[in-house]
């Protein structure tokens, strides 16, 4: 069994890559996927902390994060579809007006 900080390091790297994806990509769907990557990195940290303290509480939070992620994806992708219907584009540089 490796020490848990190996996993925390990996989780930090993946989270930062997700944050980088949010910053550099302009395709709304890929930005969404980067957010999923960040959520997964956070889940990995939760699970390694649960292992580190040998309690199950951290794992419970992973289930809540998964449920929140599913709800977020359901509404967020529906929003992207709705935006595409009006703008014919999912480039976030085009989404700069408050009116539809």
């Amino acid at each position, binding site marked *: 069994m490796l020490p848990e900080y190996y996993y925390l390091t990996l989780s930090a790297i993946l989270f930062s890559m997700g944050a980088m994806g949010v910053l550099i990509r302009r395709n709304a769907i890929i930005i969404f996927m980067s957010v999923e990557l960040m959520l997964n990195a956070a889940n990995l940290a939760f699970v390694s902390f649960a292992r580190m303290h040998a309690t199950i509480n951290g794992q419970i939070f992973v289930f809540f994060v998964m449920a929140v992620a599913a709800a977020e994806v359901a509404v967020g992708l529906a929003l992207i*579809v709705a935006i595409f219907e009006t703008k014919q584009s999912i480039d976030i540089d085009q989404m700069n007006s408050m009116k539809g």
Partner: protein
Amino acid sequence: MSEYLPIVVLLILSAFVAGAAIALGHLFGPHHPTERKSLPYESGMTPFGPGARRMPVRFYLIAVLFILFDIETVFFLPWAVVFRKLGLFGLIEMLIFVMVLVVGFLYAWEKGALEWE
């Protein structure tokens, strides 16, 4: 960890079988690609336009409902395992959970999100 060894063996074995089937076909099958042969197959018609077509939004709605009920099932499984230990309390809390989701189910039904014309 050692209890997962059979699964690893199974994974390696299935990957090997699938890979071997493809590799053997490549090794021993005849290869004479022509331009016409490598076109996408469209029942004998000459293909035109981009290969990927846009799909109707109905698929999306069905997939969304699937995911949300999928999450519900994820919470069902641990509940079913400890059902006896939890007793009446567990039954009531799960009933509340299911009731709330049944409201969503009825809403989807009422709005015709489940209909496929």
